[in-house]
């Protein structure tokens, strides 16, 4: 089994399929990433530096916004990612609470290459 799975070429995070150890170098779609902290299977690792306020992308779509600078190789989870949706606790004026219809869906080519099926089945 691979160490990590990158689902879409647009993603800036990968999913660990095995426990990742600090200092381990993983192959994520050709790029070598040094793991900076222990990451459990199912949890996510940053493939590159994600700036504060930048969208975190998985499945080729935004899954939230970085609430801190996330260095490449770091664990990406609730401590450094905030959801943008269903947030009654924040001021709607300051948040993107509108459904993202304007955003173009994955085109067929990206989906064909980017779905888990193709990645896993090679």
């Amino acid at each position, binding site marked *: 089994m691979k160490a990590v799975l990158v689902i879409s070429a647009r993603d800036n995070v990968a999913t660990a399929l095995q426990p990742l150890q600090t200092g381990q170098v993983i192959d994520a779609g050709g790029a070598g990433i040094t793991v900076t902290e222990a990451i459990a299977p199912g949890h996510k690792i940053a493939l590159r530096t994600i700036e504060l306020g930048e969208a975190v992308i998985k499945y080729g779509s935004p899954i939230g916004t970085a609430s801190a600078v996330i260095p490449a190789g770091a664990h990406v989870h609730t401590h450094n990612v905030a*959801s943008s*949706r269903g947030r009654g606790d924040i001021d709607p004026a300051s948040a993107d609470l509108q459904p993202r219809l304007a955003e173009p869906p994955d085109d067929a080519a990206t989906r064909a290459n980017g779905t*888990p099926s193709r990645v896993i089945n090679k």
Partner: protein
Amino acid sequence: MSSTNKPSRPGFLGYRRTDGRVGTRNHVLVVPTVICSAVVAERIAASAAPVAVALPHLAGCGQLGPDMRVTHDTLAAYCAHPNVGAVLVVALGCEQVVAQHLAEAARRHGKPAEIVAIQSEGGTVRATEKGSRIAQSLAGGLATQEREWCDISELVLSLKCGGSDYTSGLASNPTLGRVTDRLVELGGSAVLGEIAEIMGAEHLLASRATHAQAATKLIQIITRVETEARALGLDIRGTQPSPGNIRGGLTTIEEKSLGATHKGGERAPLEDVVAYAAPIARKGLTVMDTPGLDVESVTGMVGGGAQVVVFTTGLGTPTGNPIAPVIKITGNARTARQMEDNIDLDVSGIMDESETLDGAADRLFAEVLDVASGRQTKAETLGHREFAIHRRNPTI
């Protein structure tokens, strides 16, 4: 029927009803009109089990307009459902839900229906005795009905996930998605619920809508859920993703939704968006306005007409339904072992690359048709018959 002459197409052995619909089960449904008659209904159903099943619920009186309507319409939808062959309504006598209306809903669809009322029979013992005799007689009448070959286009599949972990979005949901695409291409129907778990992935579904109205309706109900959270000043993050989802590595509702929406396939056109437990009237993919709570969601989608449910899970869950078989599928090898009692199909080979998604989808497709033809699921064997009607307002 032309479908019987096309053995080359996939199909299943079902019960053809006089209203043209097809059932995958043939139950006597014992329906309490109100919570007050639920225990009597359960005792009556037990006297003619497993053909008879009860539909115990917590509502039926003291409800405001919209909730009352949802309660009545959901119960009526179960009375009319093709997996039900006959109906016994168990009334108290003074409640809001009208027993006669439920019996008529069954009769309009060609099913025999009887009523027993606790107050007019003179209490629990007499009502249970009379109801048991009626239930046994109705069950006897169903015993002579035979299954016949039905084309796969007659199938309405409910798509559900619960207890999700990272394997759900990578293995079980895409496996189910491939079955959805195949079913819809063959002229069948599928229904996806759980609006909160579409939040963040609605752009993908909306782009597959065959008409603007479906896309607009989808966006409207998702916006409503977000607006409701805002009006309460609440953050849905306390429940979505759930604590178990977060332990498993899911960070946000958007991430959970993008994984969950794989159940709806990649190509199946979005044909319709319907209210809770409302009829699924179009072939293709329908989205139903249900909450994320598993039992309420399955209850609504079966009410809409789904005859089989496929339920993907990462962590494992026992949920069944009184009248529809629920097939459990997991991509988590540990869950497949630890909760073997509850899991019908193990697709964890996708995670270690010992099975392809296409291979897993072939197995699930065959399983759906076997179960539609009568094979019992683990949830049925274990007697999991959970039922809960969605309610939005306080009880008065």
